């Protein structure tokens, strides 16, 4: 039996938790509404807003740390949102062990990325608008994680979707960016459909959508409904977290400015699916089918993402594939049940640091290379951009799981937990770790080592301090975040997610050693393939089906096109034809008929009073006839 959270009402500072959301939301509105007056200071206003949110989150975190474990889940009621005869939905916030960690990540990493963007977007003439959208995102994401029920969560869920859409398409003059934004939005709608249906099912079954009611009511669910709600939630999670089968939008989303990729499409928004699954742990706990589906989705995605990562030349797409893959790990962990919940969140947090670090590093590299993203045009950047190199290297070591760094702790736990539950899942996770090492080493080698393959006229230089300082801070956390939380996070999260606490130690177990071996093999293979030979300037044509599939995103677009887009287009054309030829024809025919009838009938109105009198007299006869017929009938 898993202990349920007991909520305590908000007192003191907790009553002001809403400030975290309201400040960035208001600043976003101000930046959007007040126009060019704020062009010169708008971005600093936005940075300040996030820092305020971060400060509030940090203070609340410290308070929770000091609080007694029983009273660490604080509910902050705000207002009655929807009142109907059947349901009353109260809008409220839930500040507990899980959501406060998220809030810290969002506002902390968010603040660093805001600062970085001040430099990165310095020459963009729509910088104010960019920061407004970023603040909007922060506000929506905080609503998502701080909501105390699914309906409010859904508001944030849609809000981050909107912000993601606006930011992917921020350079909307590029058709590819506009298309990518649209694609992300549409594919997310598919997931949202799952979310809405899940929420409606909850309202129908429990009469409430609050986490407390749903989690306590889950125990009484029939297996059918537990599985249905679980799968619907998983569909929503797949859309938002770019998990197979709704993964295709994330690679295209790299069209957005790089800080956006770092914040939204690596560190925070895309992990919302994992958060959702962990929040709904009671429902997944009631249905083996739904949890197994989560595990399968996680395994498939972690391998698919890694596979894509191996064959891309675009530095951001490699990182995007890697993000998919790492979220696959988190999903896998979340699907494993109580053994994995805490590790899913643990990996989510460490990934937030090191992936944001690497994305921003990639942005810094692009900054140096005049916005070229093709790694075949890089090489030998380690000496030119020293800070970027060293910070990126920390992220690299963290993600491949170099002992002692962040990813080492969090990923190894997931692999071990996977082996505990299912050997197959464990093998997938293990293989994924090897591929991760392979493609990340490839990225490092192609970017920072080897020969200069720079295009003519490109003069790489290190980025300004406003960009490198956030890199340094993130690199610092990439190194220590794992060790910092390893002995603490399981017990901290236990009341919120109901996990089983495991013994953790520094010395790896057998699986740990195996993981290290696989990782080392991946690094070595990559070194042999890319470190010892010169990199061809153009990707060599390859008949290797693995390479072809990887370069084509595992044919994700082709599959969507065949299975969904083409049938939909066909159906739409059919409907248009039916509408034109059948329905319109019928409607027009009726219209013509009435018009004809009308022009015939109006001739009765001759203007002659004698014929009017005659009509009246005929009318009298008709009245008589009707009366007589009535009497006879």
């Amino acid at each position, binding site marked *: 039996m898993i202990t349920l959270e007991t909520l305590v009402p908000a007192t003191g500072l907790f009553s002001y938790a809403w400030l975290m959301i309201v400040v960035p939301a208001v600043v976003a509105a101000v930046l959007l509404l007040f126009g060019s007056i704020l062009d010169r200071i708008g971005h600093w206003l936005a940075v300040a807003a996030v820092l305020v949110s971060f400060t509030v989150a940090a203070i609340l975190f410290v308070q929770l740390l000091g609080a007694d474990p029983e009273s660490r889940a604080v509910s902050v009621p705000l207002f009655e949102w929807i009142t109907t005869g059947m349901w009353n939905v109260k809008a409220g916030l839930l500040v507990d062990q899980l959501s406060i960690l998220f809030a810290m990540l969002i506002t902390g990493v968010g603040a660093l990325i805001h600062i970085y963007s001040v430099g990165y977007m310095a020459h963009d003439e729509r910088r104010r608008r960019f920061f407004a959208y970023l603040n909007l995102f922060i506000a929506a994401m905080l609503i998502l994680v701080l909501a105390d029920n699914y309906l409010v969560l859904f508001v944030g869920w849609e809000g981050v979707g909107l912000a993601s859409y606006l930011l992917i398409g921020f350079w909307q003059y590029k058709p590819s960016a506009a298309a990518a934004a649209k694609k992300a939005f549409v594919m997310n709608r598919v997931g949202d459909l799952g979310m809405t249906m899940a929420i409606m099912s909850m309202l129908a079954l429990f009469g409430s959508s609050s986490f407390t009611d749903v989690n306590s009511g889950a125990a009484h669910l029939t297996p059918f409904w537990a599985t249905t709600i679980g799968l619907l939630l998983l569909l929503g999670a797949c859309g938002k977290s770019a998990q197979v089968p709704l993964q295709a939008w994330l690679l295209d989303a790299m069209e957005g400015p790089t800080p956006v990729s770092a914040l939204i499409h690596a560190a925070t928004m895309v992990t919302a699916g994992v958060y959702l699954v962990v929040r709904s742990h009671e429902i997944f706990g009631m249905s083996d089918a739904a949890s197994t589906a989560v595990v399968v989705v996680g395994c498939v995605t972690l391998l698919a993402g890694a596979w894509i990562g191996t064959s891309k030349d675009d530095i951001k797409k490699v990182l995007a594939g890697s993000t998919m893959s790492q979220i696959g790990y988190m999903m896998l962990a979340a699907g494993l049940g109580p053994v994995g919940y805490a590790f899913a969140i643990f990996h989510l947090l460490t990934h937030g640091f090191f992936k944001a670090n690497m994305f921003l590093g990639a942005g810094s590299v692009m900054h140096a290379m005049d916005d070229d993203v093709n790694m075949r045009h890089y090489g030998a950047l380690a000496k030119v951009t020293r800070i970027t190199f060293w910070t990126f290297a920390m992220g690299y070591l963290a993600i491949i799981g170099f002992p002692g760094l962040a990813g080492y702790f969090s990923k190894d736990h997931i692999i071990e937990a996977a082996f505990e539950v299912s050997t197959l899942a464990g093998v997938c996770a293990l293989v994924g770790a090897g591929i991760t090492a392979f493609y990340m080493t490839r990225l490092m080698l192609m970017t920072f080592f080897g020969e200069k393959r720079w295009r003519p006229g490109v003069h790489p230089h290190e980025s300004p301090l406003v960009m490198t300082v956030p890199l340094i801070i993130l690199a610092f956390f990439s190194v220590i975040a794992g060790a910092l939380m390893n002995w603490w996070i399981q017990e901290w999260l236990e009341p919120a997610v109901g996990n089983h606490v495991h013994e953790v130690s520094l010395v790896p177990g057998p699986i740990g050693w195996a993981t290290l071996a696989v990782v080392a093999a991946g690094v070595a293979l990559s070194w042999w393939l890319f470190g010892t030979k010169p990199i061809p300037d153009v990707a060599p044509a390859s008949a290797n089906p693995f390479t072809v599939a990887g370069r084509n995103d595992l044919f994700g677009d082709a599959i969507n096109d065949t299975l969904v887009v083409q049938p939909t287009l066909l159906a739409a054309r059919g409907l248009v034809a039916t509408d034109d030829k059948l329905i319109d024809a019928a409607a027009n025919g009726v219209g013509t008929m*009435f018009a004809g009838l009308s022009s015939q*009938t109006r001739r009765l109105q001759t203007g002659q009073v004698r014929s*009017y009198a005659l009509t*009246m007299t005929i009318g009298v006869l008709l009245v008589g006839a009707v009366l007589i017929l009535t009497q006879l009938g």
Partner: protein
Amino acid sequence: MNPITAPTFEWLQLAPVLVVLLAACLGIVIEALVPRALRFVSQVALFALAAVVAFGFLVVSWNEPKNSIGLMAMGSISLDGPTYLMWGALIIFGFLSLLIFAERRLGNGNSSFAASAASVPGSPAETEAGVARHEHTEVFPLALFSLSGMMVFVAANDLLTAFVALEVMSLPLYLLSGMARRRRLLSQEAALKYFLLGALSSAFFLFGIALVYGYTGSFDLGRINDAITNPVYGAGLLYTGMAFLAIGLLFKIGAVPFHNWVPDVYVGAPTPVTGFMAICTKLAAVGATVRIFYVALGAERWSWQPLLATVAVVTMALGVVVALTQTDMKRLLAYSSISHAGFILVAVVGATSGSLGQLTSFGSILFYLVAYGFATIAAFAIVTMVRDSTGEVHAISGWAGLGRKNPLLAGIFAVLMLSFAGIPLTGGFIGKWAVFSAAWRGGYSWLVLAAVAASLVAAYVYLRVIVTMFFAPPAEGVTVGRASGLTWVPVGLGALATAWLGLFPGPLLDLVDAASIFIR
């Protein structure tokens, strides 16, 4: 031998009618005594005062705890909930119509009425009267006489009173129809047609009264009902009388096949008079019809329900179908008015006496009439405002692009059209819903289906006007005249009431529900 008793007369209760009638007589005195220059202002002041005082008396006598309900004036006037409601509606709509009568700024100082209605159109005498800026201020007393007739008509508890009221109401209208300032021949022709056909229908009505008297031995509605429930003779006389009564009433309502006068008279009459007729005449005729058929002939409803149902179907169908191809705004509104008569008859046929939470037939009819009345008064007021150099523009093509010339006015007109079409969030929708549900509860579901089909076609008629106003290239030379408050008050009030009744129909529904019981 019975001693002769002095007739009793309930002065307070009947004061609303008396005030209107007195004002009409005073209007004649004004015509005789007040200098020409002051007559117009005096007449306007008089009718405004009369409307306010009459309405005040209405409220006072309705709220009087004793004697507010009952038979008055020796049983010839029946003062009950429906009478009060009808009187209130007649006074309000009559007042709003008369405001439009009084508008002179639109015509550069001239009202809508001929300078000298009696002179031959185009003759020197007419020109002379125009140059001298004569005006027929008699229109105000005429309208007040007509209004007093209407008020008695809806309250009449015996058929003779009803007949007299019918004539009092009709005769001034015949005159008013012939007094248009523009297109005088058309106006005079309309007046003559109206008079001839009206006389014909009155003859039928009178004949019907005689036959019903022959069968029942009484003019009194209550006694007629008694005689029908305890029949002595074969019913042939009754049925014939009933048919003739129906013809006279259906003529005034403007139901098919007794509708022929409506388009011609609506077009020919001065627009303010058309507005007055479209609302007040319809209100009075429907009120009297419901009273006579429910109170006197209620026991025979199985005989007249199929008749009225047939008439309702034909009326709705012809009204909307012919409206489809109209090119003249006033004619379109005339056919619209015919089709609305059909929709109202649908509820009359239902003849349900409402239970808890359900409107009676009369309640739904009255709601419909009020919603229709507010929309109609505003619509005709707007018709007077859309002008070119020669006067009002009635061709719908001339209204093209009005949305660009005057978005406010075109927007209001669009709302009125939507209300006529019965689109939700307007009073017209609630009205249609009310009359349809009354007929449905009365067991006439087929009639409701026919009515829904008719409103479907009707929607096209009204939407076409909106499309023309907003999406057609603007017509040359047509402008929106600078009207005074006298026109803007009915326009604004009508538009607001249309929207209000659509959004918050509750208060009026409660009112008509609380006061829709007839007495015998």
